[in-house]
């Protein structure tokens, strides 16, 4: 079973699809922001949901009731739920609306706010930004992390870089008519000098194949000076495989399909995906 606002690729794998209203058509959980100046924001619909789409809270409640889980759904709708949440701080959906949807607290935005109390905004032992970290040392990690290079691309391969275009948001706008028209497909950026050596013309279509044999494309080559010679670059969010995404279907290539490898940062746990290598295969 899958929930989404669009007939994306992963939706095609599901037996049951629950079409969700978009964020502009539904109530969502309160936006609670614990920044230096904390605030709570109300997220309410701007327009009615499209066709038979429903908000996720509605689907989950209806499923729950049918499974006999009535005790967990004491609220009838999102407004009732949000009112219960807001009651503890003397607010309501109505009151939030009257104050433009935002409830702010004074907070402590400046260093002086902490100094007045003899404290520090940093939770480290020294109360300062720590370049050399005793906490890391205690955990048997390098207290002063050093840069460790990842391996270079093997001969004939390029490091696959990916990023964004200001036209598209993640993988969800490629099918939107106005934005699809501006940028219907991505390109694989290849250094212009390298393209000449490989006898690949600007605009020529190629398949991309990674170190594990995963393939995506065909995709247009953009021969440009705007990239170094050992890397190629693609805008993320293209290469949709499902016919459900009518305009975006089979346009461009998918960087995600070519990321069969990743590396974890031993300290932060952050995943690095730019460790995949690809080659460009000319179409016969």
């Amino acid at each position: 079973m899958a929930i989404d606002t669009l007939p994306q690729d992963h939706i095609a794998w599901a037996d049951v699809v629950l079409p969700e209203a978009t964020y502009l058509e539904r109530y969502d959980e309160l936006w609670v922001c614990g920044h230096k100046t904390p605030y709570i924001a109300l997220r309410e619909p701007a327009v009615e949901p499209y066709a038979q789409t429903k908000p996720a809270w509605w689907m989950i409640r209806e499923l729950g009731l049918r499974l006999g889980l009535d005790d967990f759904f004491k609220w009838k709708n999102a407004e009732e739920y949000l009112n219960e949440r807001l009651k503890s701080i003397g607010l309501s959906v109505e009151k939030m609306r009257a104050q433009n949807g935002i409830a702010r607290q004074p907070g402590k935005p400046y260093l002086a706010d902490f100094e007045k109390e003899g404290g520090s905004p940093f939770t480290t032992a020294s109360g300062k930004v720590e370049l050399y970290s005793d906490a890391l040392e205690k955990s048997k990690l390098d207290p002063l992390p050093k840069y460790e290079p990842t391996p270079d691309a093997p001969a004939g391969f390029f490091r696959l870089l990916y990023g964004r275009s200001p036209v598209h948001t993640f993988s969800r706008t490629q099918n939107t008519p106005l934005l699809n028209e501006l940028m219907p497909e991505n390109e694989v950026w290849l250094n212009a000098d390298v393209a000449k050596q490989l006898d690949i013309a600007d605009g020529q279509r190629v398949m991309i194949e990674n170190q594990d044999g995963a393939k995506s494309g065909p995709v247009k080559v953009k021969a440009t000076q705007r990239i170094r010679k050992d890397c190629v670059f693609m805008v993320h969010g293209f290469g949709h495989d499902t016919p459900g995404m009518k305009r975006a279907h089979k346009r461009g290539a998918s960087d995600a399909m070519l990321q069969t490898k990743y590396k974890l940062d031993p300290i932060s746990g952050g995943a690095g995906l730019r460790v995949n290598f690809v080659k460009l295969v000319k179409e016969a």
Partner: protein
Amino acid sequence: MARLAMAIDLERCIGCQACIVACKTENEVPLGHYRLRMRTTVIGAFPNLQGEFRLEQCFHCENAPCVPVCPTGATYINDAGIVLVDPAKCTGCKACVTACPYSMRFIHPEGGYTDKCTFCEHRVRDGKMPACVETCPTGARAFGDLDEPNSYVRAALVAAKRSDVWKPETGARPKLFYLNSKFTNTVSEDGKISVMSELHAGE
């Protein structure tokens, strides 16, 4: 008689094309056609590169070549200095499309008349900014009357380190100015701007 004009600060433009989408939505420009377009220019070789985005639309020329060629008087300059087309008078003969030095005019696929940027005359009339100006997330676009000492466009032109117009040699006197171009090497010694087509070469 006002002289409404626009100036785009190239140091602020990030090439996001939100202005293009705002224009299409505001003016219901049909799919496949644009009143605004973006030209990306890159010069140099990796890693020593310079780049620039130039948004192009009707330049609302003071000496507009599209006006005298119109056989029916459909194309005219209004009291505010905006170049407009009266769809009722336009026969779709394309004389203006050919005359425009910037190729900013097209025939509306359903209406059969010439279509192009109107500086959002319907909004400006009500004291609002054109959609492209209002939507620009970096405030790169300034709009207003060149004859009004305190207008945004004059303030932007006065504050700019450099300004140029596209194809000054045509004598059309366009009223869309580009500010703070990085490509100082394309500015000739007498301060006049060079031909844009040279700038395409990079990419």
